[in-house]
C-alpha cells in the first residue's frame, strides 16, 4: 500500500520535474536564509554566514540532484536526460543521422518483410482448425505428375473406412479444370474455376461458411447442381449480396443454386493451388463413375488425437496391400506427411536462405554504423573528456553512447516498419508470384515485435564497440589533443579495420550466394523448353453443351481453327487439352510388342490431347515421321505422336515410326516423334509424353486454342475474339494468356528469391564499399602529416596513391579470404536451389572476386587521390 503510493508519487514526479525543482529551490533558499540568519545572530559576517550555510547544506547542486533522484525514478530520469542530449547531438550531425536511419531502415524493412513471409509460410499455422493434426495423403508417384500423386475413389473410400490412426479423411477433385465453369446469363460471360470437394472436407478443415450452409451428404451423392461461392467471387461478381443464397447461376448451360459463401479467410487457392484463383466449390460425388476415371483425388486426413504421422504412415503402408489387390491398382502406395509440409515445405530452403541473407545484411549494417560511430567518437574525444572532468562516470557515458545508437536504430526501425508494411502489402498483391499462402503475408503484431527486437538489438550491437571506446581516465591526453598516433589511436584503427574486413567478408558471402542463384536463374531461362513461348498465346474455347457428339465437336474445332487462321498475323493455330507448366496427368502406356509385368511395368506417360497445327503453334519441333493432320479423325486409323524420351524407352535403338503404342486397352500407331517438352517445370526433364489426336478421342475436359502470331500476341486478342464470336457468343473475356506468361509464372518463385537475394547483395556491396571508403579516408586524414613528410622527402603523388590503394586491397583481400572460406562451407546449403551450376562454381567465385576487388579499388581511389594532392608544406605546418 505504502509502496504503491510511493510508486505513484514517483511516477507523477517524472512529469512535474520543473515545477518540483522550483518548489525545492524555494525551500532550499528559505533554509539557507534561516541558517544564515542564525549564524549572523551568533556574530558571523553576512557573506561568510551565507557561505557557511551553503556548505552545511552540502552543496546546492548535489543536494538538488539527490533530491531529484529521491523523488523520481532515477533510471527514467537519466534516460530522459540522455535522450534529450542524444536528440540534440543527432540534430547537429544531420548527415550522419540521415545516413544511419536510412541504412538501418532499409535493413530492418527488408528483415521484417522477410520475417513476415517466413511467419506466414513456416511459423504461423495453416488457417484451419487444429492444423498440426492435418495430413496430406498422397500416392507415391513422381512429383509434379498429378496422376501419380492422387488416389482413385475406391481406395479412398476404403481408406476412410479402415484407417484407425486417422479420425477423418476427406478429398477434393484434383483435376478440376482452371476456368472450367463458364458463367453466363448476367453481365460479361466469365470463366470460373470450381473445385469439387467431398462432403467432409470443410468440416475436416474446420471451415464454416460465412453465409448459408455447406453441402449435404445427399447433394454430394447425387452430384446436385449446387455451389458454394468463394468470398472473392461473391465480392467481385455479386457485390457481396447478402441475399445470394438460393440464387440461380448458369454455368456451362446448367443451372446451379448458390447455397452459401465461404469466409474470406478461407483461401483454397493460396493453400492448395498457389498462383491460381478458386471461385467456387461444387459437390464431389464419390461414385463408381468417378472411380473409373482413375487417380483423381487429393486426400487430406486428420490424425486421431495422440497418433503421429509415423504411426499413420505405418498403418497406411499395411492397409495399402489389400486395397491394391481389391482395386487391382499396382501403383497404389499411400504416403503420409503433414499438410503444412506439403504446402510450404518446398519453399523452406529458399526462405531459410533469404532469412540468413537478411541476417547477414543486418550484420553489415551494424558493422558500418559501428565504424561511423567510432569515427564520431574519435571526433568527440574532447567532449567526452570534458564530461568526465565534470564528474560524469564512465558507466554514465557508455549509457549515453548506447542510448544514442539505440535511438538511431529505433528511428531507422520506424522507417523499416513503413517499408515492411509496404513490402508485405505489395507482395500479397503480386499475383504473378506463385508461392503458397502469399495472400496471407501481412505485417502483423509479431512482425512489429520482431522489428522492435531487431531495432534494440541492432542499436546495442553497433553501439557496443564505440561505447567501450569511451575514455576511462585518459582525460589529460584528450584534453591536450595529444593523442594523434598514440596507442589509443592505433587500437582504434585496428578495431575499425576488423569491422571493415568483416563487412567485406559478409558482402562476399552474399555476393556469392546471389551470384550462384542468378547463374542458376539464367540457366533455367536458357533451358530448351521444347516449345517457343514467345509470340504464342492461348485461349480457352471449350465446346459448349450444344456440341453433344464427337462429330459436332470436330466440326466446331474445324470451324474455330479455320476462322482464326484467316486472321492476318496468325501464323499457326492448334488445340490442346493441357498447356505446359500447368496440370498434368499420366497413363500407363507400353509397346504392343512387349510384355509387361509387375516387376517391369510399362512407363507412366503424360497425356496431351491435341489437334493438327498444335506442334506448329507451340513451336514443338518434329523429329521424325509426320505431324497430325485434319484427316486424323474419328473415321481414320488411330495414330499417336510420341516424344523422344518415350521413343527411347519403348524401342531403344529402333525406328519407332509405324510401331504400336498400347494404353488402357487401345492401340495406336506411331505417326511421328517430337522433341521433349518441359511440361512439369523448367527445371525438370520431360519424362515420357504422348499426343493423341483430339478428333479421335473424347478424353479431354477442356480445350485451349493455341495461336502463333507474327506480331506480339496481345494485340490480336480482340480480333481473335470477334472471329470466334459467331461460333460461341458467350466467349469469356478473361482467358487470353500468352505462353510467356505461363513460363514467367512457373519461374516466379525462383525469380522472387533471386531478386530479393540480389537486392540484399547489392545493398551489402554498397555498404561494404562505403565502409572501405570511410576507413581509408579516415586513415588518410589521420596521416596527413606523415604523407606530407613522405612527399617532402621525395615520394611522388603516384607513389602515395598506390600505397593507399594497396592498403585498401589488403583489407579487401583479407575480407575476401574469410568470405570465400565461409562461403565454401555455407553455399552447400544452397545446392537444393541451384540449377545447372555447382555450389562451388568457379565462374561465380571468380566473378565475385573481380567485382569486390573493383569496388574496393574504387572506394580506395578517392581518398588516395585526395592524399596525393596534399601540399607537403601545408600538411607539415598544420597540426
Amino acid at each position: 500500500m505504502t509502496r504503491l503510493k510511493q510508486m505513484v508519487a514517483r511516477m507523477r514526479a517524472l512529469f512535474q520535474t520543473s515545477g518540483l525543482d522550483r518548489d525545492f529551490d524555494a525551500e532550499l533558499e528559505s533554509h539557507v536564509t534561516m541558517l544564515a540568519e542564525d549564524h549572523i545572530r551568533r556574530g558571523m559576517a553576512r557573506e561568510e554566514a551565507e557561505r557557511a550555510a551553503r556548505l552545511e547544506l552540502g552543496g546546492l547542486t548535489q543536494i538538488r540532484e539527490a533530491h531529484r533522484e529521491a523523488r523520481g525514478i532515477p533510471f527514467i530520469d537519466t534516460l530522459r536526460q540522455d535522450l534529450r542530449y542524444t536528440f540534440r547531438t543527432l540534430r547537429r550531425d544531420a548527415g550522419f543521422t540521415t545516413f544511419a536511419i536510412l541504412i538501418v531502415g532499409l535493413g530492418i524493412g527488408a528483415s521484417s518483410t522477410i520475417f513476415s513471409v517466413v511467419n506466414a509460410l513456416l511459423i504461423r499455422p495453416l488457417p484451419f482448425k487444429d492444423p498440426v493434426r492435418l495430413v496430406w495423403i498422397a500416392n507415391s508417384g513422381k512429383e509434379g505428375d498429378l496422376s501419380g500423386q492422387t488416389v482413385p475413389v475406391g481406395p479412398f473410400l476404403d481408406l476412410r473406412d479402415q484407417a484407425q490412426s486417422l479420425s477423418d479423411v476427406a478429398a477434393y477433385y484434383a483435376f478440376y479444370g482452371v476456368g472450367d465453369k463458364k458463367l453466363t446469363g448476367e453481365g460479361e460471360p466469365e470463366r470460373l474455376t470450381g473445385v469439387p470437394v467431398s462432403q467432409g472436407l470443410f468440416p475436416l478443415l474446420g471451415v464454416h461458411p460465412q453465409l448459408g450452409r455447406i453441402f449435404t451428404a445427399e447433394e454430394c451423392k447425387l452430384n446436385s447442381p449446387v455451389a458454394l461461392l468463394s468470398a472473392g467471387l461473391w465480392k467481385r461478381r455479386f457485390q457481396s449480396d447478402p441475399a445470394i443464397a438460393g440464387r440461380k447461376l448458369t454455368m456451362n448451360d446448367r443451372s446451379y443454386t448458390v447455397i452459401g459463401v465461404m469466409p474470406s479467410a478461407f483461401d483454397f487457392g493460396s493453400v492448395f493451388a498457389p498462383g491460381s484463383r478458386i471461385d467456387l466449390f461444387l459437390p464431389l460425388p464419390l461414385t463408381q463413375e468417378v472411380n473409373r476415371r482413375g487417380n483423381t483425388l487429393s486426400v487430406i486426413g486428420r490424425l486421431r488425437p495422440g497418433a503421429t504421422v509415423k504411426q499413420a504412415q505405418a498403418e497406411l503402408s499395411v492397409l495399402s496391400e489389400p486395397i491394391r489387390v481389391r482395386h487391382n491398382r499396382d501403383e497404389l502406395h499411400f504416403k503420409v506427411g503433414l499438410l503444412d509440409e506439403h504446402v510450404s515445405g518446398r519453399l523452406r530452403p529458399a526462405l531459410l536462405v533469404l532469412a540468413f541473407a537478411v541476417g547477414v545484411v543486418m550484420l553489415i549494417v551494424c558493422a558500418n554504423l559501428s565504424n561511423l560511430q567510432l569515427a564520431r567518437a574519435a571526433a568527440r574525444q574532447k567532449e567526452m573528456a570534458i564530461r568526465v572532468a565534470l564528474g560524469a562516470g564512465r558507466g554514465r557515458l557508455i549509457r549515453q553512447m548506447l542510448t544514442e545508437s539505440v535511438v538511431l536504430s529505433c528511428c531507422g526501425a520506424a522507417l523499416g516498419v513503413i517499408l515492411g508494411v509496404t513490402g508485405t502489402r505489395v507482395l500479397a498483391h503480386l499475383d504473378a508470384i506463385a508461392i503458397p499462402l502469399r495472400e496471407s503475408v501481412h505485417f502483423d503484431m509479431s512482425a512489429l515485435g520482431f522489428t522492435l527486437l531487431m531495432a534494440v538489438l541492432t542499436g546495442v550491437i553497433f553501439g557496443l564497440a564505440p561505447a567501450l571506446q569511451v575514455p576511462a581516465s585518459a582525460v589529460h591526453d584528450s584534453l591536450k589533443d595529444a593523442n594523434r598516433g598514440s596507442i589509443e589511436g592505433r587500437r582504434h584503427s585496428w578495431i575499425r579495420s576488423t569491422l571493415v574486413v568483416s563487412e567485406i567478408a559478409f558482402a562476399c558471402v552474399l555476393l556469392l550466394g546471389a551470384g550462384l542463384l542468378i547463374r542458376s536463374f539464367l540457366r533455367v531461362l536458357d533451358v530448351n523448353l521444347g516449345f517457343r513461348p514467345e509470340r504464342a498465346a492461348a485461349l480457352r474455347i471449350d465446346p459448349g453443351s450444344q456440341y453433344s457428339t464427337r462429330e459436332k465437336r470436330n466440326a466446331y474445332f474445324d470451324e474455330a481453327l479455320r476462322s482464326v487462321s484467316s486472321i492476318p498475323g496468325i501464323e499457326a493455330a492448334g488445340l490442346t487439352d493441357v498447356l505446359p507448366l500447368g496440370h498434368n496427368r499420366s497413363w500407363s502406356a507400353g509397346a504392343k510388342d512387349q510384355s509387361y509385368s509387375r516387376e517391369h511395368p510399362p512407363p507412366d506417360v503424360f497425356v496431351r490431347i491435341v489437334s493438327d497445327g498444335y506442334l506448329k503453334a507451340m513451336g514443338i519441333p518434329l523429329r521424325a515421321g509426320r505431324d497430325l493432320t485434319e484427316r486424323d479423325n474419328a473415321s481414320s486409323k488411330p495414330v499417336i505422336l510420341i516424344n523422344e524420351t518415350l521413343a527411347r524407352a519403348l524401342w531403344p535403338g529402333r525406328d519407332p515410326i509405324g510401331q504400336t503404342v498400347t494404353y488402357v486397352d487401345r492401340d495406336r500407331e506411331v505417326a511421328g516423334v517430337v522433341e521433349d517438352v518441359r511440361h512439369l517445370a523448367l527445371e525438370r526433364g520431360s519424362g515420357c509424353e504422348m499426343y493423341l489426336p483430339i478428333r479421335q478421342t473424347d478424353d479431354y475436359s477442356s480445350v485451349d486454342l493455341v495461336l502463333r502470331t507474327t506480331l506480339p500476341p496481345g494485340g490480336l486478342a480482340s480480333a481473335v475474339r470477334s472471329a470466334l464470336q459467331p461460333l460461341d457468343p458467350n466467349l469469356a473475356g478473361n482467358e487470353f494468356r500468352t505462353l510467356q506468361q505461363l513460363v514467367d509464372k512457373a519461374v516466379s518463385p525462383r525469380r522472387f528469391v533471386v531478386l530479393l537475394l540480389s537486392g540484399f547483395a547489392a545493398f551489402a556491396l554498397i555498404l561494404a564499399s562505403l565502409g572501405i571508403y570511410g576507413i581509408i579516408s579516415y586513415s588518410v586524414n589521420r596521416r596527413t602529416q606523415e604523407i606530407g613528410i613522405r612527399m617532402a622527402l621525395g615520394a611522388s603523388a603516384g607513389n602515395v596513391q598506390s600505397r593507399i590503394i594497396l592498403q585498401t586491397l589488403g583489407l579487401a583481400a583479407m575480407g575476401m579470404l574469410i568470405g570465400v572460406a565461409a562461403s565454401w562451407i555455407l553455399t552447400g546449403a544452397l545446392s537444393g536451389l541451384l540449377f545447372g551450376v555447382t555450389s562451388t562454381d568457379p565462374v561465380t567465385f571468380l566473378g565475385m572476386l573481380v567485382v569486390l576487388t573493383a569496388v574496393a579499388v574504387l572506394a580506395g581511389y578517392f581518398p588516395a587521390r585526395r592524399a596525393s594532392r596534399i601540399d607537403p608544406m601545408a600538411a607539415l605546418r598544420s597540426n
Partner: protein
Amino acid sequence: MAESKSDILQGTLDLMVLKTLDAMGPLHGYGIARRIEQLSEEALLVNQGTIYLCLVRLVQKGLIKAEWGTSENNRKAKFYSISRFGRKQLIAETGNWERVSGVIGKLLQLRARG
C-alpha cells in the same frame, strides 16, 4: 547519494523525523534539522541537505504532509506535519524499535559480562 546510505540509517532518520514532528507539531525542514542536531549533539546529520531526501520520501509515502507557510521570523517556509497514517506508523515503528533495541541491548550486556 541517498542510495549509498545504509537502510538502517535511513530508517532511523525517518523515525526521528516522524517523532520530531509528532512531538513538536508542524516544522520546516531547517527546524527539523536543527532539532535533530541538538538532540543528537550534532553527531547524526552529516549535512542538513540529507533531511530533504528523507522528507520527500515520507511525503511520497503519505506519512507526513507539506504546506507552505510563514516562519516565526516572517520567512516563507515549507512546513511539514505528521499525518494520521504517519502517527499510526510511528506507533508501530516505535514498538519495533524498542523491541529491537531491547534485544540488542541485552545482547551487548551479555557480551560485556562474558
